[in-house]
Every structure is written in structure tokens, then in C-alpha cells.
């Protein structure tokens, strides 16, 4: 793992050093093998008890928080589908004003807001952009299971090319209905917000502890920060729940979801395929029912685009610009 930042923060140094306390506990109704629920559990564990959380509408609202059986040990509030950014701003601004005016005790309270790929990557982009320009300490986590997973698995702007969803079913005439290439949200936000000091991608399954430490680091860096997680979803991706971790690992190792962090504009790759190599995307795709209808040609197309991202992009995984600057 490349370390470009020597920023001091309370790093969890090993699995056995992981805090035992849970701040996202029992009471939720997420599916077996739900990696997004693991994202919730891990960010809450990393952030600790002095935290306030908002959650946008999505499966991590509907499946997570049933009245009178809340899993949230820390204070939590629902926010609207496209409101991850403004909800974080509102809480952070309110707490800052009340502390400055002496109405509540002066202390560091972590403000964390989460959203799914539909809420954060599509509808809420403008609000997240606003939050990343703000002067507040806040962390926005986009949990990306590549579909509107609560609503019956509909395609979003972050669904992998070719995937079957209820909006993109393979048919007799059109085999591939999901023709959009996955939106590059973390890169877009990092490139577009020069004063945002921390943007990262992560996977709660792989490498172990990486996501927990990225949450810790984001909170330590301060200001508005953003983490995009890659969450295998047994229901939406159509595989047996016991393979969630394995799929996460395969997704990283085939390079289709780049793992990196950007601290003060410096990019470091959490999994660097240039050093460690990439497995073929086929090994990742063929384990999921949502890609069962793809033919060799489709898989080759996906492989070509992933190859281009790692071999041709000026900053692989972050910005799809190629070939450096040319004279005017």
C-alpha cells in the first residue's frame, strides 16, 4: 500500500485492535451478505459515540431503520433522497452556531451523512457539491451497490455497463439495456472541489480495515470530506450471500472499481494494479447473475474500457484525461 500522506490520525493498526463497541447494532433488516450494512457498521465503529448521522432515503433507510427497532446507537435522522449534502451542512452549521453562542458544550462532534448511488450519485450530486464547498467538518459516505436496491433493483447512473436490472432487462432484441458507463463520482468530486482535502474510494470487504481507517483519516483531516464505497449486493447482483466479500475483493483486483485516496490533492492507490497486476474482469463478472446474459463481445468491451482507465488515463481511476497537455 502506497503512503503519500504522513498525516497523524488514530489509525486502527490491526484487526485485533479494532474497537469492540458497536454504534450500528442489531435491529436492522438488511439482507444476508449486505455489504452496505457493513459500511454502516464500520463507519459508526470508526467514528465512535460523539457522532451525529443522517441517512438519505434508500435501502439503508428502509431496510435499516424500522420504528422502535432502530440499529443506531448514535443519534440518527432520515433525510431526503437528494439531501445528503445539505443535511450534513445543516447539522454542522447548527452545532457550530450553538457551540459558538455557548448554548451547547464546545467539543468535536463528527457529522456524517450517507447516501446510496441513486441518492448521492444522481439526484444529490448538486447538494454534495455544495457541501464539499462548505466550511464545515463533515463526511459524506456514498454507499454504492449499483442500483436502487430497495425499490426492486433499478439501474442508476452508477450501475455497471451491461448489468441486468428491472429497468434494464435483457430482451429478445436488445441484449444490453444498461448502456451507460458508470459515473466516476469520487473522481468528479475530487477534481471539482479544490478546497476539499479528502476524497477516497473504499470497499468494506477489502483490504481489511481499510475503510475504517479511511473514515478515521477523513474525520482527522477535517473540513468537508467524501468517501465512495463499493458494496456487493446479493439481491441486486444475483449471487449467493456467502460470496459478498469475495466479490468485493474481485472487483478491486480486476480494477473495475479503483481504490484510492486523495489527500490535499495527492493521489495514492490503496490497491495499485500497476504493481500488483489485474485479474481479468471476466472473473468478477461471471460470478454474478446480473451479467449472465453478456456475450464475449460485451465482456471484451468492458475489459477494454477498464484497461484504458488504468493504462491511458492521466490519473488512473480519477480523471479520464489522456496524453498530458498539448501545446495550444
Amino acid at each position, binding site marked *: 500500500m502506497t503512503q503519500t500522506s504522513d498525516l497523524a490520525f488514530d489509525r486502527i493498526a490491526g484487526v485485533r485492535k479494532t474497537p469492540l463497541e458497536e454504534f450500528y447494532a442489531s435491529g436492522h433488516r438488511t439482507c444476508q451478505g449486505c455489504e452496505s450494512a457493513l459500511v454502516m457498521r464500520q463507519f459508526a465503529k470508526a467514528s465512535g459515540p460523539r457522532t451525529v448521522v443522517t441517512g438519505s432515503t434508500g435501502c439503508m433507510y428502509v431496510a435499516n431503520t424500522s420504528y422502535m427497532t432502530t440499529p443506531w446507537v448514535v443519534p440518527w435522522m432520515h433525510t431526503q433522497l437528494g439531501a445528503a449534502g445539505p443535511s450534513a451542512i*445543516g447539522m454542522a*452549521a447548527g452545532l457550530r452556531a450553538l457551540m459558538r453562542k455557548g448554548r451547547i458544550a464546545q467539543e468535536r462532534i463528527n457529522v456524517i451523512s450517507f447516501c446510496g448511488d441513486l441518492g448521492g450519485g444522481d439526484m444529490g450530486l448538486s447538494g454534495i457539491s455544495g457541501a464539499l464547498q462548505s466550511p464545515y467538518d463533515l463526511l459524506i459516505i456514498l454507499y454504492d451497490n449499483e442500483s436502487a436496491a430497495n425499490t426492486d433493483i433499478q439501474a442508476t447512473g452508477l450501475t455497471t455497463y451491461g448489468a441486468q436490472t428491472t429497468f434494464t432487462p435483457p430482451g429478445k432484441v436488445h441484449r444490453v439495456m444498461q448502456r451507460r458507463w458508470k459515473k466516476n463520482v469520487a473522481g468528479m468530486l475530487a477534481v471539482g472541489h479544490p478546497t476539499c482535502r479528502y476524497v477516497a474510494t473504499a470497499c468494506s470487504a477489502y483490504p481489511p480495515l481499510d475503510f475504517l481507517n479511511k473514515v478515521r483519516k477523513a474525520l482527522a483531516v477535517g473540513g468537508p470530506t467524501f468517501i465512495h464505497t463499493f458494496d456487493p449486493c446479493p439481491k441486486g447482483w444475483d449471487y449467493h450471500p456467502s460470496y459478498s466479500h469475495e466479490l468485493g475483493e474481485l472487483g478491486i483486483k480486476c480494477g473495475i472499481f479503483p481504490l484510492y485516496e486523495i489527500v490535499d490533492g495527492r493521489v495514492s492507490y490503496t490497491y495499485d494494479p500497476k504493481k500488483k497486476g489485474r485479474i481479468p474482469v471476466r472473473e468478477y463478472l461471471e460470478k454474478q447473475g446480473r451479467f449472465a446474459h453478456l456475450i464475449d463481445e460485451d465482456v471484451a468491451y468492458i475489459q477494454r474500457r477498464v484497461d484504458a482507465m488504468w493504462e491511458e488515463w492521466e490519473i488512473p481511476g480519477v480523471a479520464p484525461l489522456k496524453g498530458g497537455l498539448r501545446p495550444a
Partner: protein
Amino acid sequence: MTLAEKTIAYEREELLTGCQAVAQAVRLADVDVIAAYPIRPYTEVMDNLSRIIADGQLDAEYIVADSEHSQFEIVKHASSVGARAFAGSSGTGWMYGFEALVVTATDRLPVLFLVGNRALDDPGAFGVEHNDALAIRDMGWLLCWATTAQEALEHVLIGYRVAEDPRVRMPMALALDGAFLTHSQHMVRVPAAETVRRFLPPFDLGDRRLHPDNPISIAPQVNEDWVMELRRQNWEAARRARRVIEQAYREFNELFGERYGTPFFDEYMTDDAEVVLVGLGTVAMPARTAVRRLREHGHRVGYVNLRWFRPFPGPELRASLARFRAVGVIDRDFAHGSPDDGGVLLHEVRSCLYPLPERPQVLNFLTGLGGRDISIDDVTSMYEQTLAAGRGRALEPAVRWIGVREEAARGVPEERRP
């Protein structure tokens, strides 16, 4: 109250627009979080507040949002952690943030919004129409119209006081007619900060406050198991609000002098009136002038200015209007396809009158749309029509357009179309 106490109720008098008066009230209310997004005409309040904050007259977080939806969500969540919050909008901007307006009410968060009433697009029009604010009438908001800059200022204070009361905890929309009030100047007496503090205690959300020391979950998924009981709680709060409003006006009058008679509406020259007009907002100005002139000619007419639309003062307004032979309802809004094709206020007033054994005749005037001026002549005509209806003449049609160019409303004639 002694004279000395009364003299400090207001600290100075100055010429202010409606928006400037609201900005002064937000300063006096010591608001903690303000979220802004520009749209005419409400936006002048935010221009003023940014300057007030820049000059150090108010200690508040001032956030320029990326859209109205974000603007409303920001203040909603600021309120959830216990901050007193302020926002506002107009016309289509208000509608853009509508989802956030709905959840602010269902989350029972007592933020205060200024609505600078503006016609909805399309086509574009900056002028006043009331459909923007009226859109929230069924959503669990307090909704009130001011007719002068003085009332606008005072209803920010009364609004926070009522909204934040633990018996209520509903968001408050204060509507000001675009241009006619948002941008017209009045002499305004600005209350003294110390007296405002006595009237409006600091916001305390109690055990509903989101904070690590109070780790609650707000608005989890409830489905059919609980949503009906929660709707019932909202309903009860709106019912309770009426008594809290009355109490707030009583205490306001004690501290600031006898400013208000009845809280929900005020009546002008109605004592011996045969007929009255009822309206919302600045139409009160030409209406009161028309009343005075008509009375000079011996006509017994009066005007009822409805201030609070939500909660609607059902029994109070019913008892008042029962005294008249006819009531003309002025709508600066529309409700296309509704019963008799009348305006929103018509249906509220008619519904309010229905339980009376003997009901006054009710006419409806649709007028002043898109900011078109409602002249004294227009209102005089409405009075004449209402007087005729009161005497049993010319009862049909029940709904009448005033000040519309009928010829132009029919569109381009066939022969002149390309």
C-alpha cells in the same frame, strides 16, 4: 404596564421595506442558521441579512445553498440539532424545494420561512400570486399573511414563538405579497432587543434535539403500523396551535402595546356592515380605501383581512361572517377545475360557513394575478356586486374575474392566426 416599560418596547422608527423589516426581526430573534438562495422577490431579505451578519449585528451561520431543495434541507437539519433557523423563497423556487417543505412539517421542526409571494412559471412573472404559499396548506405548516412591514416584522417574532412552542412544533411560513409588500417602504417601529427576549425565549427542542447526549433516531420507516397515529399527532398540533396563537398575541400586546385585536383576522368598519369582502395580504389597502369612500356615499360595507390561513380560524370567522348578508371572497390565486371553478380562499370560506343555519350569499372574485394591480375601482366594483347579491340580485355567476381583459383572454382570433 408603566409608561416607562412601554417606551422601551420599540427602540427606533425607520423606513423599511417588508423584506428589510423581516431581516430586522430575524436579527432580533437571534437566529442561529440562515440558508439563502436567490429568487425574486423574497431574496432582498437575504441581501439584508448577509449585510447584517457581515457588520456583526447578528451571530449566525449564513449558508448560500446550491438550490432551494438544499436550502430548505439545510435549515431543517439545523433545526433538528436545536438551532433557530430561517430561510425563504418565492414562486417556483418554493415549489422546487417542496419535498423538503413537506418533511420539515412531518418532522415537526419549527423553522420560519419568508414566502415572497410570486406567480408560478410558466410564463415567467415576478408579481404576486398566492398559489406558491397556498401549496403547503394541507402539509402541517403554520401559514400567515402580513399586510404591512410592521406586521411582517412582528409576525417573525410571533411566528417563532408559536412554531417553537412544545405544544405546536410546526414550521411557520410568513407570506408577504411580492413587490406590494416585499419591496414597498413603510415607517416601521423596530422593537427593542431586550423586550423581544422577554417575548421570545431561546429555542429549546428538548428531548427531540439530535445530539450525542440525546441519541435518538428521527423519522425511521413506519409504514402502516404507525403513520396514521403520527398524522393524528400533526393534526392535534395544528388544532392546539390556535390557542397558542391567541396566547402569543395576548403577551405580545402586553409587551408592545395593544397592537392587535383579534389574532386570526382583523375587521375594518364591519360593525354595522351589510356586506364585507374577505381577502389575504395587501389587497387590504385598496379594499379599506374603497370601504371609506363607499361609506361616504352611505353604503354599509366593511373589510375582513384574513391573517392566519393555517390554522384556519373556522369558528371565529364563521361567527364573524354570519353577521353579513353577503360575503365577497377575493382570491389572488386560482384552483383550476375546483367546485364552481373558484379560488382557494373561496372554498375555505364557503366550507367554513356551511354549518350556519342561515348563510350569507358568497361571491368569489379572481383578481390581481401575476402582480396585476387591484385598483380602488376594482374593489369598489366588487363591493357593488356583493351588495347586489346581498339584496338577492345578480347572484350568478358565483365566480367572477376582475381586471382581466376578456377579449385577450380568448386568445388570438382564428382569422389572425398564421
